[in-house]
């Protein structure tokens, strides 16, 4: 990937941090396993493109990181990744500029890896996953935030009964009642196969709310449970994905998982409705209903 710095240069630029290995990369960020202030943390490097740097405006990347950090600071839900000890700082590594900060290091596999392996989760695992999502979305809603990028790759399954699943990456989170960070007002943020239908509406800014996260969370649970994303045929960037999102009704989850309780499958199906008003929006009520199942 173009923006990832040379490993040796990185180590040289951050002499107080013991960088163990490169972990993952996505969007404009790279993640490393590192020892920071004596404990293992996830070191995050966010690349700041130079053209942004020349502009008089504050670069979009910087604003996004600022928002992500503010958001993570505000949210106390255990199912959301926590910030680490390294405060954001600007570094020039090689010829490129980065913002460097840290988050807690979580030992676990992402749901996308499980899906790729053809893993078939139990009902209990899916139920716990949905409950984690509901708690996260409730917390985000209280803070007037929309995650906008809930997907299997952004969820880690941990070997910790208190935190069975943790949602990562608030990098493109949207703050309601706040100014927009995205410079191009027509850009729809998110990962296509997990974006809700309202994200493609002409007035999408007016349409998106916490129910968009509920949709993506349900879709992620659906895919985890069934191994199928109903909107993707072939590759994830297939041109038919978008029209499928806005037109098809996915097969009921019970079709793929007849071993699951019907009530659970119905909740997932209902949260994936195209019209936000058809998705149950009382999160507290949904949590109670799920716990009673």
């Amino acid at each position: 990937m173009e923006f990832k710095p040379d490993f040796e240069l990185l180590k040289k630029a951050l002499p107080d941090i013991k960088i163990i290995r490169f972990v993952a990369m996505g969007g404009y960020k790279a993640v490393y396993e590192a020892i920071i202030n004596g404990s293992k943390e996830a070191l995050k490097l966010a690349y700041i493109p130079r053209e942004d740097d020349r502009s008089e405006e504050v670069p979009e990347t910087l604003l996004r990181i600022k928002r992500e950090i503010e958001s993570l600071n505000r949210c106390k839900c255990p199912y959301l990744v926590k910030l680490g000890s390294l405060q954001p700082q600007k570094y020039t590594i090689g010829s490129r500029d980065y913002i460097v900060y840290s988050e807690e290091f979580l030992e676990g596999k992402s749901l996308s890896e499980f899906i790729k392996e053809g893993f078939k989760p139990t009902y209990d695992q899916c139920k716990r996953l949905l409950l984690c999502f509901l708690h996260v979305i409730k917390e985000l809603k209280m803070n007037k935030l929309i995650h906008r990028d809930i997907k299997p790759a952004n969820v880690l399954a941990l070997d910790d009964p208190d935190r069975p699943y943790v949602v990562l990456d608030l990098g493109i989170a949207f703050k309601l009642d706040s100014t927009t960070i995205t410079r191009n007002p027509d850009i729809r943020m998110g990962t296509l196969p997990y974006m809700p239908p309202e994200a493609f509406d002409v007035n999408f800014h007016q349409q998106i709310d916490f129910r968009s996260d509920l949709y993506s969370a349900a879709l992620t649970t659906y895919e985890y449970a069934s191994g199928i994303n109903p909107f993707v045929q072939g590759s994830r960037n297939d041109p038919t994905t978008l029209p499928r999102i806005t037109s098809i009704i996915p097969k009921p989850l019970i079709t793929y998982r007849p071993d699951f309780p019907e009530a659970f499958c119905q909740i997932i199906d209902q949260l994936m409705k195209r019209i936000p008003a058809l998705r149950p929006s009382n999160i507290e009520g949904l949590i109670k209903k799920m716990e009673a199942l």
Partner: protein
Amino acid sequence: MKLYAQCGHAPADKINRGIELGLVDGAILSPRYLTPDKASELIGELKQIKDGIDIFLDPEFYATRYVGAPNAQLRYLEEWPYFIDTKRNSLLINSHLVDQVLQNSFKAQKDIGCTQLIAPNIYIGNSFDSLDAAIAISFINRAKSVAKQMEANLPVYATIAAYRDAIIHPSNFISFLSTLTALEFPPDGIYSLVGGGPADERAGTVRSEVISADVIAGWMLLNHSLSLNGIRVINGFSDILTPFLGAAGGYAGASGWWSNLQVFSMGRYIKGPGGGQSPLLKYLCLKLLNRIPVNSLRAYTELVPELMNNLPTDAYYDGKEPSRTEEALQSWEAIKFMTDITISNNIGESLERLENWIVNAESYYGRLNELGFSDDFESNMEYLQCLKDSLMAFARLAEL
């Protein structure tokens, strides 16, 4: 699903008997026909008949648009303290005015002994993408908070009163529903009114403008979407559509004794041509999904006896003309019966039962036609087709 008596002119003992016989679960009173004192007296009487019944007063605030109009017929409405013409722009600009109207109306309802509150609202004319809709949302949004501030301690139903044309534009209507279902402090429920044009005042349900596949499907969608979000919907003037709205998730329906209590229309607040005959006594025939005049009932059932509902109130029609009260009781019993047997916990199953019901009605009309009763055959078949289409349109909208 509950059924309420939609009250209006000349109630006599209709509501009392309906409650006594358990045919209705309560009443929605009209301040247009009752002074505050009379309303209070009536509520006291009704509460004595049965404990725990639901008594509402529709504040009919939407009719304030006619205050001062030379041809307005508002009757006792202007005797109610909250019924004051408030300019639309003032409601839009001054949010405290909305609170004031809500407060005054809740106080009036509490004072007379209502068991639940209906929040006033304005009428949404042609579109949900309008100033009217913006003001309406403001009333709905504030209803629960204002009741709480007043320590009203009664369930609050916010009104949505809309003209049928507003509902048939799905994108605006759906966008309104999206806003409504994401309110931070939603009311306990919605009192929904879907209006036809002025001609519907005397048309009766079957020939009204509300009978359109898109309108019924939209009304069903409102019930479905709100029920999914834990908001109860009481459907005013829902009459024979009650089971359809209940299948979609509606909490209650309502119907009254005159045709203008079976279909909602703003036409009632404006003086019409007047005069005319007293309406024919009718029988709500469930097999035909229609009200038929007593004379026709006699003629039909002589050849097709199974057209009778086989319900206790059929006795009122046994060889005699029923009284107006008996006519109302028969109508309530029929609606309640059909609602009870068509609605299940499974929405797909309920829709299927309703569809089968309509198909049966078509075959009964076919038989009557073959027997020479061809009056209105085509329009009745069109009406039934429209009901069938509404089920399909609803299933499409609700992504079932």
